[in-house]
């Protein structure tokens, strides 16, 4: 039978329930917006590059970070030693790359510790609310009033210098900002109806906090985390600079800067490379953090 345009059409009854619009998840959308930010992408690429060379770099140069050769001391940048050598004849490129490992490791570990403390503390404070919240936040206020760097220095004096101790000292004292941010988020979120809905299906307070509330604050948490990493790296560099950092012959960017600033007038490149590395890394993390803040802001969603 020939079908005419006016014959009854066959339709799939399920089709009417389908939403035609393609769905874009929150993270895919955030990634799309992050890609639009040139500075954030610069930061991301630089950090990826830094991580790769920090992992592979020291193995690719012919020296190790502690190889000394006094006949080749204080060389300016040249073909064999791209970044020159220091006063003990150690290759500065190798030491800078090795320092990247230490600095990044400290930055990431310390940020991880401080974020974990801050998220749990702020989460409990905001979710409990009332008197508990008041009490917990006054403790934070008091800690804010004390110069943290002094605290870190005292801790380092007690426990001694060393990589792990730096991580612990920074991690244990810099969680205040994260705690405040998470608390603020939780305070706003816990009034939302889906929290009440979670209660009506019998979820307990811990389950609501960790499963329903904290995943909803991932945006601000990631931004704060990203912006706290350069702080930790800088604190490590500062501690190393005043002699409380990692001990020789280990190299971090801070110890390298400390070793070389005396020779600033005669061999300026010895300071230039570690200082430049610190600056570029800080800049990259800050660019990335700024980009993430814009990308994860739900009000920016289109």
């Amino acid at each position, binding site marked *: 039978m020939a079908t005419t345009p006016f014959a009854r059409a066959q339709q799939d009854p399920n089709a009417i329930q389908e939403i035609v619009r393609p769905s874009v998840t929150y993270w895919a959308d955030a990634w799309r917006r992050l890609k639009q930010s040139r500075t954030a992408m610069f930061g991301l690429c630089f950090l990826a590059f830094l991580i790769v060379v920090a992992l592979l770099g020291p193995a690719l140069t012919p020296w190790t970070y502690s190889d000394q050769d006094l006949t080749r001391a204080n060389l300016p940048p040249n073909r064999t030693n791209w970044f020159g050598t220091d006063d003990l004849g150690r290759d500065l490129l190798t030491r800078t790359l090795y320092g990247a490992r230490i600095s990044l490791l400290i930055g990431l570990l310390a940020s991880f510790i401080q974020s974990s403390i801050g998220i749990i503390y702020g989460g409990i404070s905001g979710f409990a609310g009332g008197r508990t919240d008041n009490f917990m936040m006054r403790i934070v206020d008091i800690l804010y009033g004390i110069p943290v760097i002094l605290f870190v220095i005292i801790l380092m004096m007690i426990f001694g210098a060393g990589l792990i101790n730096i991580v612990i000292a920074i991690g244990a004292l810099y969680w205040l900002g994260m705690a405040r941010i998470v608390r603020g988020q939780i305070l706003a979120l816990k009034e939302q109806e889906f929290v009440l809905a979670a209660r009506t299906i*019998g979820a307990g307070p811990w389950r609501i906090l960790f499963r329903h509330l904290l995943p909803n604050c991932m945006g601000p948490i990631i931004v704060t985390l990203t912006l706290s990493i350069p702080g930790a790296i800088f604190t490590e560099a500062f501690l190393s600079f005043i002699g409380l950092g990692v001990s020789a012959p280990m190299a971090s960017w801070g110890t390298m800067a400390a070793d070389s600033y005396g020779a600033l007038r005669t061999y300026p490149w010895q300071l230039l490379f570690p200082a430049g590395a610190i600056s570029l890394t800080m800049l990259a993390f800050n660019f990335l953090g700024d980009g993430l803040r814009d990308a994860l802001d739900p009000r920016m969603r289109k």
Partner: protein
Amino acid sequence: MHTDDRLLAIEDLKTSFFTYVGEVKAVDGVSFDLDKAEAIAIVGESGCGKTVTAMSILRLIPPPGRIVRGRITLDGQDLLAKSERDMQQVRGNDVSMIFQDPMTSLNPVLTIGLQIMEPLILHQGMSKEAARQRAVEMLELVGIPHAARRVNQYPHQFSGGMRQRAMIAMALACNPKLLLADEPTTSLDVTIQAQIIELMKDLKQKLSTSIILITHDLGIVAGLCSRVLVMYAGKIIETGPIKAIYHDARHPYTWGLLKSVPRLDALEKRRLVPILGQPPDLLRPPAGCRFHPRCGHAMHICLEEEPELFEAGDGHRVACWLTQPQAAGVLKEAMAGGR
């Protein structure tokens, strides 16, 4: 009378919010009961205590609110005597709730599947795979096509009506004895409203769940519920079988509610008559009948003495002085004026 069919009994429930200006009596001496597989509706304006009644059953009254007195018995268990931990076992398992706005009552960062699985894992000790399987079945049951694919999607990928279906799937996952539906259709389009009511009716039959439907819209009640409670200012002012309420309402407030429902099937042109004024401030409710300041037929006694729930025949009870024989004259006047 049928004690074995009785699911829920609420006696003299009183829930108040103790604010800094004083005690707000949101629910003030409410009593009713509900049989197994029965659906009733609680009807009234905003702020008359419907939602607080439902939240009292779940014991989820936010501070500074508190259940002051009363008894809530669910299937022989005294809910008000339970510890918070025991209540968590009741919520979602024996009693669950769906909300007005499906846009905000689903967690935006968890998949629909995970949210339906949650009560199953919490209450039935199911493994993740079994719970996922059940979540897919539940989504199919509430009429979501391609459930196996949909189960991994997020709430923003669902339309409003589908989210409400997902909410219902989540609430019914553990096959609860009682479903509290707090204005489940208010934020939906009319066509979707009809679908959701139809779905609830269907599921009530399939799963024999009892339903308390809270609404301010008398129009959606008829298809689903067998009895209606009309609440005003924290009290039940009229209750009865659905026919009695629709065709033989005795309380002027119920008349007002019925007159403010637009009807498409009315033969002659009919004016929509709003009830003038606002519900009273429950901090200082008016003396006498709480409705008297807004009532067009108030008598002297209404200003002074509060009416109890008088019997008006066959489970129909009304808290209004007009039902008394002495008020026949005023009642006649009221009926003549088209109520």
